[in-house]
């Protein structure tokens, strides 16, 4: 080693710069990951408070807390903030922190673009939230913003909503390009594609999905923009357009979008279960192929969201079969997780508890998805609380539980301290029980015919709504408690070892805890 190289290495040993500007100028993947995660937590709290307003209004029949327009705005903003503000940025935050650590790269491939893709987000989020204070109120047409509700009948603030979606799209696309470039070009020597940890694989596939569908969403909102302001008629029947076409374009984006939210969670769970079952992941290659098949199928099933628009029977049959087909690769994954645990030496640390709850409850959400994938039964469930229960099972106990599991799993590596075991388990059991009190009764409400997005309901729905609301308040409280646990962990606690978890496999456990500001400046050798 020459002196020049040694000096070079010294240069890389400096820690993080001090002050607020560190976070504005940072190009460090760990800093940006942290920013993403905190941003998504703030959005999660705001979106969650909107959900509390919804549950408060639905606590009893009749109108008591808010007026219907504001209620609709709450359901809309809750959906938009949770999808675009909480789940997606949280997944990108995990990718930023973990992908370089897991493939032995010093940083993301395009660090400056990384800074940009994060710093667009707070502005997009603020713009989206600012619509709530404008004349006519915020968007109140549902998070799916179907035309003509979002074109002809929407408040003026909708144009701000459109630009917010554009900016969120830019952010996601830039983030995805970064993930792909990192995974393709920055792997440590010897880290072949089929040796990559599954979290990296699922994110690579997710990034391709994002690049394929975020531009289509941008196109859809651009058409909305010109319909609203420049006299085009993409979605206006009066001008020769077709409002049903909006649903096709939207769901062409929207269905891959739901896999964008869940695939990284699949990856997280595929990391956690082998660690705490102390066995390698069962069927690694089949996991990769299953993920890729799910991603491919997600492009050809979009119209199962619109079985009731008046499709011909041939169309309904095609979309029904294609949809039910997704159950095959998904089941491969669930069987692999179960087989990984089979005869493993399992322990139940907090990340494992969340991962197990994920497997069980996500699968439950998958089953209700199958029920609605069947066109004739969907006719009954369509736009009822059954679909609300379904997508909250896959997105809350699926995607969100996956994120929380990931946070508990990697928090010792990020902060250098273990989260308090007793408090974490309390958080888990509190959330796992309350989330079921919150969403399980919504199945009953939906089967009994209660429509979604309605602030008032008839008397027969009263009891289960009250139960659901109580579960909702409890679950909300539990996530404030989560904030407390994270802050407590950052401030101190039991010191984490470098390995963090007994015999954990993977490059991220070979570096010090907490992870130094610069890691893998010299790439590790993978055998």
């Amino acid at each position, binding site marked *: 080693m020459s002196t020049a190289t040694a000096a070079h290495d010294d240069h890389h040993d400096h820690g993080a710069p001090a002050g607020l500007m560190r976070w504005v100028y940072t190009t460090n993947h760990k800093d940006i990951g942290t920013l993403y995660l905190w941003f998504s937590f703030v959005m999660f709290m705001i979106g969650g408070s909107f959900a509390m307003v919804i549950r408060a209004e639905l606590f009893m029949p009749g109108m008591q807390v808010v007026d219907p327009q504001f209620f609709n705005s709450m359901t809309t903003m809750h959906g938009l903030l949770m999808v675009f503000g909480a789940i997606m940025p949280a997944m990108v935050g995990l990718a930023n922190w973990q992908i370089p650590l897991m493939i032995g790269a010093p940083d993301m491939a395009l660090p400056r673009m990384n800074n940009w893709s994060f710093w667009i987000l707070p502005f997009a989020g603020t713009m989206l939230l600012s619509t709530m204070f404008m004349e006519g109120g915020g968007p109140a047409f549902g998070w799916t913003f179907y035309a003509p509700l979002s074109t002809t009948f929407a408040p003026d603030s909708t144009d701000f909503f459109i630009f917010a979606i554009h900016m969120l799209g830019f952010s996601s696309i830039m983030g995805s390009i970064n993930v792909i470039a990192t995974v393709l070009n*920055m792997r440590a020597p010897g880290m072949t594609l089929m040796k990559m940890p599954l979290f990296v694989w699922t994110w690579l596939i997710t990034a391709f999905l994002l690049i*394929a569908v975020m531009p*289509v969403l941008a196109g859809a909102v651009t058409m909305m923009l010109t319909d609203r302001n420049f006299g085009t008629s993409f979605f206006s029947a009066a001008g*020769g357009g077709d409002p049903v076409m909006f649903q096709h374009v939207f769901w062409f984006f929207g269905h891959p979008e739901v896999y964008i939210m869940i695939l990284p969670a699949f990856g997280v769970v595929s990391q956690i279960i082998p660690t705490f079952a102390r066995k390698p992941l069962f069927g690694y290659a089949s996991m990769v192929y299953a993920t890729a098949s799910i991603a491919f199928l997600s492009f050809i099933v979009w119209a199962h969201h619109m079985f009731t628009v008046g499709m011909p029977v041939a169309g309904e049959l095609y979309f029904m079969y294609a949809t039910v087909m997704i159950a095959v690769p998904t089941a491969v994954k669930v069987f692999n997780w179960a087989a990984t645990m089979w005869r493993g030496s399992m322990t139940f640390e907090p990340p494992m508890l969340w991962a197990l709850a994920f497997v069980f409850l996500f699968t439950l959400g998958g089953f209700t998805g199958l029920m609605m994938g069947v066109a004739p039964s969907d006719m009954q469930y369509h736009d009822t609380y059954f679909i609300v229960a379904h997508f909250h099972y896959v997105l809350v106990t699926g995607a969100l539980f996956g994120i929380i599991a990931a946070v508990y799993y990697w928090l010792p590596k990020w902060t250098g301290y273990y989260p308090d075991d007793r408090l974490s388990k309390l958080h888990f059991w509190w959330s796992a029980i309350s989330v079921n009190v919150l969403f399980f009764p919504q199945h009953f409400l939906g089967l009994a015919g209660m429509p979604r997005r309605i602030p008032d309901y008839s008397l027969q729905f009263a009891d289960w709504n009250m139960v659901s609301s109580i579960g909702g308040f409890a679950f909300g409280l539990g996530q404030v408690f989560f904030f407390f646990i994270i802050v407590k962990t950052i401030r101190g606690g039991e010191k984490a070892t470098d390995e963090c978890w007994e015999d954990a496999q993977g490059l991220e456990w070979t570096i010090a805890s907490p992870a130094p500001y610069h890691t893998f400046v010299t790439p590790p050798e993978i055998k």
Partner: protein
Amino acid sequence: MLGSELDTANRRVVKRLGVVVLAMFGFGFALVPLYDAICDLTGLNGKTGQVDEQIAKAYAVDMDRWITVEFVAQVNTELPWMVEPVVRTMRVHPGALTDALFVAQNRKAEQIVGQAIPSLVPNIASRYFDKTECFCFNQQTLGPKERLEMPLRFVIDPAIPKDVGSVVLSYTFFRVDGAAQISQAGS
């Protein structure tokens, strides 16, 4: 990978993915004509066709077959008109050029422009239902309280599937005042 090599590789990935992003943005817009083409081929949204009178007259009239045509008119909430078909039901032979009449009445004391959008069920029949003349080909302008008779001339292609015994032709009238120039909307 070495520093410069890595830069080139990263740049290549960014360029390629940038092309994909632009292509997918274009694809979003390409869905519009694609959707229209699929609807035309399958008759899915019930849009009826427009043909030249010459072609319509050249059809051989199938005197053995009757098809019942029912007319429906409805007005979008923003348009203060009353619109009705003069004859609600007629029986026609496939291939025979037939006239029908709708009447519109402006209920307001101001000039209003409207546009009729047709839809035909069963959808499969819409490919065989063609018009040589229709009030839906153009926007209609009604003066204050004006009443207007709006003619329609249509022909049913004798190739229409044998199991179609009756069709319903429905028009929805939209207000298009101040909206941008709309072309080909009603065809």
